């Protein structure tokens, strides 16, 4: 029982952030609605740069949502809508910009960082284990250690 109450309270608390900013109501069919949701979640609101067009209640975001809706209802494809937006606002409007000379570093960065990171981790670990194998200063390398005797 307590659990249910807690879950309910949590749900009510979270629901505050689920307030709809979309004033137009749902699209006429679920398939269009899914495409609308996907598109508006991929477009960046240029005024409030870390929000998507779906999240933001800026006037510009509303304009872009309305335009997306109109174009979808008029039968435009997703690519056509993305192209329409990039023609006007550049690649910046896309949260996932296409790979080009300008964005190559951006796209390659995770892989590069992974390589650099694992390489340096490898080097550090190898150096440490080599250092552990080496006799410490002042130790007689020819004297067998306790560990060797035990094995």
């Amino acid at each position, binding site marked *: 029982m307590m659990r249910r109450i807690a879950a309910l309270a949590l749900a009510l608390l979270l629901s505050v952030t689920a307030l709809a900013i979309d004033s137009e109501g749902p699209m006429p069919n679920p398939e269009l609605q899914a495409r609308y949701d996907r598109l508006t979640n991929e477009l960046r609101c240029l*005024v409030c*740069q870390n929000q998507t067009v779906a999240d933001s209640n800026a006037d510009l975001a509303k*304009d872009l949502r309305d*335009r997306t809706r109109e174009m979808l209802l008029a039968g435009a494809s997703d690519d056509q809508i993305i192209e329409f937006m990039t023609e006007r606002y*550049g690649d910046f409007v896309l949260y996932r910009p296409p790979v080009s000379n300008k964005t190559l570093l951006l796209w390659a960065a995770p892989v590069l960082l992974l390589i650099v990171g694992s390489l340096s981790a490898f080097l550090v670990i190898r150096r440490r284990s080599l250092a552990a194998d080496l006799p410490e200063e002042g130790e007689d390398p020819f004297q067998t250690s306790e560990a060797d005797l035990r094995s």
Partner: protein
Amino acid sequence: MRYVVPAAVFAVLVVFFWIGLSKDPSEVPSPFIGKPAPTFRLPELRNPEATVSNANLQGQPTVLNVWATWCVGCRQEHETLMQLASANMVPIYGLNYRDNREDALKWLDRLGDPYVAIGYDPEGAAGLDWGVYGAPETFLIDPSGIVVYKHLGPMTLSVWREEFMPRIQSMSGRGG
């Protein structure tokens, strides 16, 4: 020797952050630079029967200034626009963006009117076609109707001198 690598990494990071953080993230490069101005056709603000369209932005260098009465930066730059208009270098066209006619006319009455003609765009439809996202924005268009430069934020005399004048001069130099 063992400090060389961390020091080098640190130096690279400093350079990256130095450049990255000194950039204004709200300044998005306009995709229209070097391309023909987007097509638009709007009723004139002061005279609704007349229209403002791409035809106005042909034949000589022109400036298109996006403004609205709700826009603080527009109020800031207004004096500069008045000065530029009185210097009579290039015609300044206005794009009244997401505003209402009455307020806009009052503003012009009170503060002066630097514009040759103003397109009235209450829905922001033409603004969307021009990729407008934050007024004030000022476009420089060359005689063949190609967008040459876009300035985001209030126009100032130093921006005008440094960014607009050289470009306008090179246009007339080409015989445009």
